[in-house]
């Protein structure tokens, strides 16, 4: 067995560096450095993501993409019509209407989708090229057209991480078109859970967000499309019923999304 020079000093130096960087990063004193490094890294990540998305065996045909976009447009129109109907009914009855919330959309490019294998498995996380400097905060909703894509789970100065609706860590209240309220969870599949047994839910019904905005104006706005019900699980002995939901968004094909940010 050969004897080699000791590696302990180098190891200890590197470990010290790691701990120092971690401590500074946790305390937020490393923002200037991470901000600087992120700019370079996000460039590499962006190029890499786009290269892989353009690989023929990883992307879907253009015709299919076009159809998906049209589908999303039509869904947006359905939701708008439903909303108008409700507003109209409210105006007719009591001349009431809700004020639009002080939110605005921020366009963000997806620069990373560190899923298992891009195009093969469905991503559950996106990395966006907008961060705290652009007023993106943890908990902000991320959308495409009227569809909920996910929720911001981590933010740095220039980048942010989106946990998509199919991510197991994402959970929020939602309602069906008929007003049955439940909680969106993701165990094996996207599920609308905790719906009262007395509620009537049907396959094909749209699932919309119920709205969960905090006092700072950050959160998920109401009436965003989560998906449609594809199956209902109703057991008379259970307290609640549940429904499997399928999102209309093809996460693998997205390049750009919009972040709901507060005007405050």
């Amino acid at each position, binding site marked *: 067995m050969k004897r080699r020079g000791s590696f302990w000093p180098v190891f200890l130096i590197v470990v010290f560096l790691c701990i120092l960087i971690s401590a500074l990063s946790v305390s937020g004193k490393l923002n200037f450095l991470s901000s600087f490094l992120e700019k370079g890294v996000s460039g590499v990540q962006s190029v890499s993501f786009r290269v892989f998305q353009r690989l023929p065996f990883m992307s879907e045909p253009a015709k299919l993409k076009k159809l998906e976009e049209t589908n999303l447009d039509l869904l947006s129109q359905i939701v708008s019509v439903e909303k108008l109907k409700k507003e109209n009914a409210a105006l007719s009855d009591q001349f009431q209407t809700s004020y639009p919330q002080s939110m605005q959309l921020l366009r963000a490019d997806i620069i990373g989708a560190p899923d298992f294998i891009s195009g093969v498995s469905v991503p559950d996380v996106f*990395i966006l090229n907008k961060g705290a400097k652009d007023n993106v905060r943890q908990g902000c909703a991320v959308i495409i057209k009227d569809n909920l894509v996910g929720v911001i789970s981590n933010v740095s100065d220039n980048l942010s991480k989106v946990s998509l609706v199919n991510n197991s860590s994402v959970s929020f209240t939602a309602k069906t078109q008929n007003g049955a309220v439940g909680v969106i969870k993701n165990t094996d599949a996207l599920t609308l859970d905790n719906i009262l047994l007395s509620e009537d839910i049907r396959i094909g019904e749209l699932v919309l967000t119920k709205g969960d905005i905090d006092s700072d104006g950050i959160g998920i706005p109401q009436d965003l499309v989560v998906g449609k019900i594809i199956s209902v699980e109703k057991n008379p002995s259970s307290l609640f019923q549940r429904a499997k939901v399928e999102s209309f968004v093809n996460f693998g094909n997205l390049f750009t999304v919009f972040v709901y940010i507060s005007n405050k």
Partner: protein
Amino acid sequence: MIYIFLILTFLTIFVSAVTTIPFSVGLLVATTVIFKKSWVFFLAFGLGLFLDLIMVRILGYSSLMFTIFALILFLYERKFETRNAIFVFIASFLGSLVYLRVFDYQQIFLQSLINSLFAIIFFKLLWLKSDPHSETT
């Protein structure tokens, strides 16, 4: 050999942006086994920092994990022969498994398996360039 190493490092960084398969662990194992130099710790530090940056995590966590992993490989290498594909496979598999479990990724066994196979390719490439006349087991 250094060119091959640089190309592999660049590819690892490039691919890390689109997949959660920790190719960095595979590269780290292959590099540690072939080079057996203490600068590998700095490579572990750099790769970890890059992964933390692209995944918007607290900086330094992955670096610390990779550095400790490299230390374990060095300690093992002092006692046993590590320049073989079986060791590279097992070390990459276990390293990936721990990394993916700690950061709570999905399908960790499959990802670790794929990473181990790539680690062997990295190892063979580096080995051939370092000593073309020798055979690896």
